[in-house]
């Protein structure tokens, strides 16, 4: 996959206080990267540096296609309250003259807004403003999208729409960074997660289950379990506590279908088998613990 963004040794110091310390990050075409961390971790600052409205103290941000622009969804909607939604987008589009009226209308329809709605944006609900901001971010068809807390103010339907839109854009090759403090949201939307704490990226986690080697499996009886252990090897099978069927985590590079195809002829009665989900919450808690054991 082609890299569209490369951040190297990025630092930001404001009034002698380090806000970002040595951030290294890359983003590929079509990738959705989650930036997760507690409030004040530096997510917004990092996105603002990438979008160019804040200058880094040191380090570099390289865009593969700077001329294609960056779509930005700020933390809070930035709109002129007296204008209609369409007029707001028209005004922003006149900066680069890249999106024509037709494209503005399409972007509004994509996010579920009516381009013909004359209502002033000041009277919009927060969710509608957020949808309009999303429209301005995508209307010029940028190759890079930066979304800061995108589900702020969105209703459940809006969140589902957003997720589908992001998946579609990613499949068209758009690279997307989502900053959020909501674990579950990130888990559902992102291919990869960078956990940011106190201005540093403390961990990167790949959420794509295809690259995930853990399979959760349960079998009918103890004897099935013993056969399973013999098949897998003791080191590759970690038992889990269970109240009925023996259960464990299998570490295997084989796809689930191959594992099944090998176990069934061996006469092992399988009760359930599935890819084990990555427990982002556990990783996050582990990362946000301070040395003295106090959660930040």
């Amino acid at each position, binding site marked *: 996959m082609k890299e569209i963004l490369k951040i190297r040794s990025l630092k930001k110091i404001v009034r002698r206080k380090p806000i970002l310390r040595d951030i290294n990050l890359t983003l590929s075409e079509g990738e959705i990267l989650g930036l997760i961390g507690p409030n004040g971790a530096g997510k917004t600052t990092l996105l603002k540096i990438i979008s160019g*409205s804040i200058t880094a103290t040191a380090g570099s941000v390289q865009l593969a296609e700077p001329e294609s622009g960056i779509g930005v969804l*700020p933390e809070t909607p930035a709109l002129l309250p007296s204008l209609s939604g369409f007029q707001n987008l028209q005004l922003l589009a006149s900066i680069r003259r890249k999106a024509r009226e037709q494209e503005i209308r399409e972007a509004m329809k994509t996010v579920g807004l009516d381009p013909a709605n004359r209502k002033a944006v000041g009277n919009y609900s927060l969710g509608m403003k957020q949808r309009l901001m999303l429209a301005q971010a995508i209307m010029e068809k940028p190759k890079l999208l930066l979304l800061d807390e995108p589900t702020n103010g969105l209703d459940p339907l809006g969140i589902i729409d957003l997720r589908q839109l992001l998946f579609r854009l990613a499949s068209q090759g758009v690279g997307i960074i989502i900053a959020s403090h909501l674990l579950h949201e990130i888990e559902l939307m992102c291919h990869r997660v960078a956990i940011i704490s106190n201005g540093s990226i403390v961990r990167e986690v790949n959420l794509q289950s295809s690259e995930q080697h853990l399979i959760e499996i349960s079998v009918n009886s103890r004897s099935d379990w013993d056969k399973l252990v013999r098949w897998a090897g003791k080191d590759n099978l970690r038992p889990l506590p269970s109240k009925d069927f023996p259960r464990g985590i299998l570490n295997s590079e084989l796809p689930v279908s191959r594992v099944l195809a090998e176990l069934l002829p061996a006469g092992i009665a399988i009760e359930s088998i599935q890819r084990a989900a990555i427990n982002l919450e556990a990783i996050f808690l582990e990362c946000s613990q301070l040395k003295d054991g106090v959660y930040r």
Partner: protein
Amino acid sequence: MLTNIIRLELKRILGKKKLLVLGILGIGLLITGVVIYLEYNTPQRTSFEAFSFATGYILPLALPLLAGLSTGDMLAEDRHLGLVQLFMSRGVLPYQYISGKAIGSVVGQICFTGGLLITFLLTTFLLFPAGPILEYAADFAKAFAATNPMVYCLVLLLIYVCAATAFSGIALLVSVWIENIFVVVVTPTILYFAALYSLSMSLINPYCYLALNEGVSSSPSFTFLKVMGYWITISVTVHVLAVMAFSLKKDHS
């Protein structure tokens, strides 16, 4: 890109309903000045004299606030709404962005204050016959105003427009650092009155240059140029400073 930005800013500032409201307010204030004019004696009541009297009575007090309110908040508004980031992410450079604001501030004031005073001048034509200004003109230009009342009024108009751009520029400069719209809008007024009281009648007291409180020593045309030069110098300085300060700033949102 720069032309796009300038066009956008001009369209934005001139399309503001706020300007219309402030214009009506300004006309209202100036009409109050005309009412006061009626209580004063004069050998001949004329439209030009009404214009000279009312503007000289009202604007040295109200112009800084009118200018601040009408176009002084352009940058503060964007910063408050968070729009700056949306410009920068579209590849607009800080100097391009702030240049659009500076030009918007100057052109906006030319249109707002110029439009306000032309409208007011036309209004006085409805109320009084045209004629010489015999009584209420600046001391240094009494004779000039009596013989060339129309030109005198147009010169006044130019001076007020230049002063208004200076006040708007001060607000723009302040908003490079201050985001609070209210503070930004009233700063020109506060600085003006602070200067008025602290500088008393010294050479750089802005009140002297707005109320045309000049001696009668020099010729009218020289004094006019001096007054206009005073305001243009301030206006250019603060706008250039605003462009430089914003361009050199590291963080723009």
